[in-house]
């Protein structure tokens, strides 16, 4: 049983509600996975392409006869191919901006000295510089485009200075440009999302080689976020921060081996604070995704440090499905801890949480090994029975829906002697008492399933149940052991 994948293209880009400063714990991110890389870049290039003057576009599309007259900053097609990921490369429309001499220098000028008109000019310059910095360079080749690289580096520096020191620089039209520039530069260093094989050999030079620019981009990003003018409400319209920061952290973890223990510890702390201090926490889901890929890379046998982490940190969290499953697939013996942990922390008052827990249990059961299942089946199905009889119909529905899962069904079938007695009387009772007709219908499905699995056992339990009912109906206080498999049915029917 493997984890389920989802078609990424079905998810819309999700925008964060707020963008906290970089120094606080990792901010909140949406649950959806990122849109594939190419769409991001195509978006960038198409926009830039459109912003070109006609002559330049013509030059790009039809070869460069007049190129000699100008010194364009040409994109590196090899890099584009690496980023595109599917063999083809993006159209060469990451444009050649105007020659550097034409772009005047940005000066960090205090806003107060210049009312209106110069401010507009300032913004325009800023914008152009941003666009200029969208061009990517090949650092693998140390001698290529030296001039262009230097111009970009200078531009980035100016941008950093400007954001750091000026006021009133960040106006709304600049947000998309800034984000775009950051995205273009950062994303290109990542492996394509289709590539499941992380190859350190292939990717390493790319990141470190372009560090001269990348470092400035990060710094710009930091200043951008820290700027007193920064408006999260505006930024949220243009940013999918989840992808940016999550992937940064992922890359950092992947590359900077010396930082790994530190990062893991920080993640630990964040999670622990989440569990024991706050109700809501931002970014946990995304951190967990990163953690998922970290756990996937754990060497066997698992270090006790990692197992401790599982027990003390992951289990109390209620959004742990992927990570937990990764753990289980590494070392099946942790399964029992996981399930017992979930049962121990089972939510008593919050319906939504309970439904979520049930979802987690199902994901876990989907990959559980039969030998592990046997160890936990009794307490587990007692809890499931309790959920079925919950007055909240969503909880009951979710619990009953387990029987629609083929693998879980096969586990139940193998152990039906133990499981059926645990849930039988609950099922019958609820079918008579529950107000919700959907639940009643689902219970029929479950009972029918059991009937087909083992009709003898089912009949025995039915008889026993009816016997119990008859006794209690007469007001008798006789306690009968109910539901034991193989128990002789009462006399007289």
């Amino acid at each position, binding site marked *: 049983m493997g*984890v*389920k994948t*989802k078609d*990424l293209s079905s998810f819309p880009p999700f925008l964060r509600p707020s963008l906290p400063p970089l120094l606080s714990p990792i901010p909140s991110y949406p*649950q959806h996975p990122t849109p594939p890389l190419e769409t991001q870049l195509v978006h960038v290039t198409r926009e830039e392409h459109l912003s070109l003057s006609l002559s330049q576009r013509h030059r790009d599309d039809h070869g460069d006869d007049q190129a000699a007259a100008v010194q364009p900053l040409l994109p590196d097609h090899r890099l584009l191919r690496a980023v595109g990921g599917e063999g083809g490369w993006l159209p060469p429309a990451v444009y050649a901006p105007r020659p550097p001499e034409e772009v005047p220098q940005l000066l960090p000028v205090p806003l107060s000295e210049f009312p209106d008109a110069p401010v507009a000019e300032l913004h325009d310059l800023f914008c152009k510089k941003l666009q200029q910095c969208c061009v990517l360079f090949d650092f693998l080749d140390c001698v290529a485009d030296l001039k262009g690289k230097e111009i970009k580096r200078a531009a980035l520096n100016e941008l950093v200075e400007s954001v750091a020191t000026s006021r009133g620089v960040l106006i709304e039209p600049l947000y998309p440009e800034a984000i775009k520039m950051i995205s273009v530069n950062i994303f290109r260093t990542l*492996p394509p*999302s289709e590539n499941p094989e*992380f190859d350190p050999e292939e990717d390493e030079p790319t990141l470190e080689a372009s560090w001269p620019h990348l470092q400035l981009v990060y710094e710009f990003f930091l200043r951008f976020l820290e700027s007193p003018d920064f408006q999260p409400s505006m930024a949220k319209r243009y940013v999918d921060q989840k992808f940016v920061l*999550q992937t940064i952290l*992922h890359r950092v973890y*992947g590359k900077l*081996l*010396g*930082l*790994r*223990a530190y990062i893991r*510890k*920080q993640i630990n*702390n*964040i999670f*622990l*604070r989440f569990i*024991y201090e706050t109700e809501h926490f931002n970014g946990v889901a995304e951190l967990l*995704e990163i953690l998922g*890929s*970290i756990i996937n890379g754990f060497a066997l046998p698992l270090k006790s440090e990692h197992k401790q982490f599982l027990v*003390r940190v992951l289990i109390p969290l209620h959004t742990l*499905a992927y990570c937990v499953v990764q753990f289980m697939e590494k070392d099946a013996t942790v399964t029992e801890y996981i399930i017992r942990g979930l049962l121990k922390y089972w939510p008593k008052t919050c319906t939504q949480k309970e*439904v979520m827990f049930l*979802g987690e249990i199902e994901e876990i059961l989907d990959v559980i090994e039969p030998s592990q299942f046997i160890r936990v089946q009794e307490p587990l199905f007692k809890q499931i029975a309790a959920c079925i009889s919950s007055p909240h119909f*969503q909880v009951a*529905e*979710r619990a009953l*829906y387990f*029987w629609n899962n083929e693998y879980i*069904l096969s586990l139940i*079938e193998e152990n*039906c002697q133990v499981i059926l007695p645990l849930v039988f009387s609950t099922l019958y009772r609820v*079918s*008579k008492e529950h107000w919700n007709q*959907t639940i*009643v*219908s*689902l219970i*029929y*499905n479950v*009972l*029918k*399933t059991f*009937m*087909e699995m083992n*009709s*003898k*056992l089912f*009949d*025995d339990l039915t008889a026993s149940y009816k016997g119990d009912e008859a006794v209690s109906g007469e007001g008798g206080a006789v306690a009968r052991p109910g539901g034991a498999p193989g128990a002789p*049915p009462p*006399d*007289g*029917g």
Partner: protein
Amino acid sequence: MKDLQSVDSLLLKELKLCCAKESSFLPRDSGLRILEAAPAENHNAVSAKCRDANVEELWGLTSFFGYSAQTFVQAVNMLDRFLTIMKVQPKHLPCIGVCCLHMAAKMVEEEHVLSPTRELIRISHSKFTVSDLGRMEKIISEKLGSPEPQAVTALTFLHLYRSAFEALTAGREELPSIGTLEAQLKACTCRLVFSKAKPSVLALSLLAQELNALQSTTAMKAVQQLQKHLKISEGELLHWREQVGRCMAQYYSGECTKPDNKKLVWIVSRRTAQNLQANRFCVPGLPTIPEGNWDESESEDSCEDMSCEEDSLCGSPGSDGGGAYFPSTFRSTCRE
């Protein structure tokens, strides 16, 4: 007749009476043969397999709605009789089955136990409507003769036999409970082959098989006495005992057969359906990061560059690259 003296004479008379009546409630033999002969996956004619599946479905509904074994047996009797006199298309079988069940329940059950037809239809995920059911009811009662008296079935005989046995063995033997016998009869009813048997014979065979397991000579003698009294041939009894034996072997084996889940319809509320879709977690697009072989804690120097900016990321005081893995403040909290 000396041996049967202990048995109440009224009971014996009843037994004889039922024996006389039972043939009028038997499904037509020729029809049964047609059913048995029909190929399993036929869209034009009902086969034995098809009928058996439908009967099992009826048992499920009987059980779920809390109807008695008598209702079930009556329903199946009606079904079999109808199927052996009318040529029916398989697609109508569910409707006929549910209709028979409803008619039987009306005959047998008390008013407050009866479920309305729309509930029967809803739970059984049937495609037909309440009015379809109404029309079918008319057809069935017309064909089988109405008003329909309760049929004499193997269940009738089981009850009578058991009472007789109690008298015959004078309470010395532990007899199987009526509940057990009913369950076994139900298992047999789910197979068309047993519809060929005379109810008196079937019931005795069942009892005989069960008592055989007890290995009591008294009980077996009682069987023989009843057999003589009702003039049941040895050959017939042996034949059906064998059939019952085979059926019981399978029933008692408790073999789990993988239920055919595809037949069931799982309807959930909209909210749960949304929840199910949303929470299907997906594999993140992040590639695996392999754990290093060398000691990662050795090269902590690069931490220093980050620590000044990352202070607020540290959850516990004084945390740097080389602290305890679980800060002590949290360790104590965990223990709670």
